[in-house]
């Protein structure tokens, strides 16, 4: 027995631990703090933060025998986790407000400009196309879409992109209101909207997810898996005949996938990818840039959505409150509620929640489509 042989092994934990790792432990701690004390998207930030801590203690997804690598390979590399989460999200979405007012769907397209605006900025800053596009997906303002596209185009950026997407999403009530006040007049915010929806039959509600799946798979095959799973979840709920499966989607499947998705993404956040790579001797400023660009993506989305809302308001002869343009960014259902609240702050009797929720679900659809289109275009160019 030779202590000289055993000691390095016993001290392996300390030997591999650098100041960069210590800093990343702090980052993980901050994420957990935000999740627990501030309740910012805790179901994701808590696992991501804990995964980040583990990644810098020798359990990253880059270690050959790490259990987090097993989970990463099984769920992120295979693209299963975002899709499983979408089955659950689909089972929680109600498309009736949108189906009752079909033209609201247009608002779901404008709110995707942030994706492409950010892509332009990122290429201008020198990011290669695959990374720039991945950063752009933060502008989808929809976690699973951003993770699905990024895991195909630039998996090395999964950590910062997921963190940016989910953190800013939880900050929607802070990010959007100033922009909304700046870009709309009080008169516009006071516009009341009539709620006289068409009746929506059960047949329509069941047919909708199937038809959407077919259309999107044909015109944007890149988005097909995302849209298919989202719509599968919705079909499970709306069909009303498979309550067992509906419950499994909304509980077991989404909870397990969410926990392990968060852990695995956090476990990509090693110090050498985020701070300083001792092998190449390079500082990783990209992480900060990603976080900054992500904030811009949210802002551009909101601005584009509001501009389109103003256009629709003008075209409709002032019958549409432009505030609901801000719901087209996705961020379901926070953005929808926020718009309704802004309108009500100006006039206590002004209720636009149903219109806002319609635009918000349209934004969810638009986000997935834009993400798929982006994936398809960029895939051919790299």
């Amino acid at each position, binding site marked *: 027995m030779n202590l000289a042989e055993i000691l390095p092994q016993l001290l392996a934990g300390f030997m591999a631990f650098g100041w960069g790792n210590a800093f990343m432990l702090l980052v993980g701690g901050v994420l957990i703090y935000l999740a627990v004390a501030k309740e910012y998207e805790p179901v994701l930030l808590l696992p991501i933060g804990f995964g980040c801590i583990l990644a810098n203690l020798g359990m990253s997804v880059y270690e050959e025998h790490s259990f987090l690598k097993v989970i990463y390979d099984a769920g992120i590399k295979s693209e299963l986790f975002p899709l499983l989460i979408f089955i659950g999200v689909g089972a929680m979405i*109600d498309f009736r407000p949108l189906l009752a007012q079909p033209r609201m769907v247009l608002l779901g*397209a404008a709110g995707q400009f942030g994706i492409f605006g950010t892509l332009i900025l990122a290429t201008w800053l020198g990011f*290669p196309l695959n990374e720039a596009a991945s950063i752009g997906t933060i502008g989808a303002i929809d976690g699973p879409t951003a993770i699905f596209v990024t895991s195909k185009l630039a998996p090395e950026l999964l950590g910062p992109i997921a963190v940016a997407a989910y953190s800013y999403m939880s900050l929607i009530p802070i990010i959007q209101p100033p922009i909304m006040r700046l870009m709309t007049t009080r008169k516009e915010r006071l516009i009341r909207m009539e709620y006289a929806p068409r009746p929506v039959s059960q047949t*329509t509600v069941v047919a909708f997810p199937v038809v959407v799946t077919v259309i999107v798979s044909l015109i944007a095959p890149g988005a097909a898996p995302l849209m298919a799973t989202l719509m599968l979840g919705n079909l499970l709920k709306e069909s009303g005949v498979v309550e067992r499966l509906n419950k499994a989607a909304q509980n077991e499947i989404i909870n397990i996938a969410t926990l392990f998705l968060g852990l695995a993404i956090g476990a990509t956040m090693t110090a050498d990818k985020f701070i300083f790579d001792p092998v190449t001797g390079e500082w990783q400023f990209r992480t900060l840039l990603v976080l900054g660009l992500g904030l811009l993506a949210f802002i551009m989305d909101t601005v584009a959505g509001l501009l389109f809302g103003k256009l629709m308001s003008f075209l409709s002869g002032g019958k549409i409150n432009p505030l609901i343009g801000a719901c087209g960014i996705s961020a379901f259902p926070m953005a929808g509620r926020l718009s309704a609240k802004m309108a009500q702050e100006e006039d206590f009797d002004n209720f636009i929640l149903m219109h806002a929720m319609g635009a918000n679900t349209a934004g969810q659809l638009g986000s997935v489509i834009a993400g798929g289109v982006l994936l398809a275009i960029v895939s051919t160019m790299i």
Partner: protein
Amino acid sequence: MSELFSQALWITLLGMGLTFAAIVLFWGMMALITAIPVGAEKEAAETAPRDSIPTQAAAQKAKAAALAVALALAEQEQQQVAYFPMPETAFVSAWQLGMRTRQMYQKGSGR
């Protein structure tokens, strides 16, 4: 202007164009899909009336829903004396929204 940057502009043009095209297609499809079932409504009403919103009651329900929201928002307002607009989480909130929506309808139909 670098080639990469010009590529990015092209992607934006193509991407936003396709997204709008898809969404416009959705609009048409939704107009169609919500129009057709008026004939099929009878059958649907027999087998599965549970989830469809009946036309006659819709306006009334909307009012009830609006009232419920108003109350909820007013309530939220009060809480915010001490605290800024609760930044809720996506999943939990989606969940809550579903519950709340159900409650709204329950109140509406209970009257």
